[in-house]
């Protein structure tokens, strides 16, 4: 189902089971641990105009409902503050199933093939990471605010790295 809350920067596609507490970070019926998430979880990146991504989302929704694709999110508007002029769609899945998901994307005219692991993304959002620091600059945060943002990132992301055997809990966005 497509979850489109205007107050959110992102539009999501989830299986309805998510709203009864089930996770989408699952492989072969088993919830991923933090360590497994860091090893296997990631996304295909799809860039395009909002109108086209809305179309692709509608086309992909049945695959999400059938649990062939675990989760999708995409930008409501381009993140120009981060230097991206197009909307970005992230089609999440386990690396061990990404070829199957890619075949679905190809059926819907996605041509540019770009896989980014969640570990790579998290490293970009860690204190000192390129995305977090660019985000801080784009928001003109003063030093104290920037330090709070870095500490928040550190506490949330380091927990994942420091507790590899715990079941991964996707964070709210």
């Amino acid at each position, binding site marked *: 189902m497509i979850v489109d809350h205007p107050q959110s920067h992102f539009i999501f596609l989830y299986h309805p089971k998510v709203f009864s507490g089930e996770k989408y970070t699952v492989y072969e019926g088993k919830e991923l641990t933090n360590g497994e998430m860091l090893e296997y979880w990631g996304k*295909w*990146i799809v*860039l*395009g*105009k909002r109108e086209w991504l809305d179309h692709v989302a509608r086309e992909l929704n049945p695959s999400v409902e059938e649990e062939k694709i675990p989760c999708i999110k995409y930008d409501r508007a381009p*993140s120009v503050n*981060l*230097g*991206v*002029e*197009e909307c*970005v769609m992230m089609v999440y899945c386990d690396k061990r199933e990404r070829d199957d998901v*890619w075949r679905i994307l190809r059926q819907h005219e996605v*041509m*540019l*093939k*770009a*896989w*980014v*692991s969640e570990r*790579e*993304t998290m490293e*970009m*959002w860690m204190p000192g990471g*390129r*995305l977090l620091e*660019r985000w801080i600059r784009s928001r003109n945060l003063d030093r104290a605010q920037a330090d709070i943002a870095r500490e928040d990132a550190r506490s949330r992301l380091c927990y994942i790295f420091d507790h590899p055997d715990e079941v991964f809990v996707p964070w709210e966005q």
Partner: protein
Amino acid sequence: MDVMVRVPSSLKKWFEGRDEVLCQGETVGECIGSLVGSFPGLKHRLQDGEGGINSDVLVFLNGENIQGLKEGMTPVRPGDVIGIIPFAAGG
């Protein structure tokens, strides 16, 4: 050898309006160098001051981020496809 390069719409302006171009090389780095030779305005966008790949872009070989391969030294084969996106799109 010839290798296909694909970019998203927002980067088509780098390649005279095309989202697919051919480049030549034996490695990803050589292919990027070939692009810079064909489109001189790209040098500062695709390469850093030392001829490496500019960190403002993410480069993929057949969908795999080359940072997890051998970066610019990653060898290419006939039929391979290089993808280039703004680095922030990966987050």
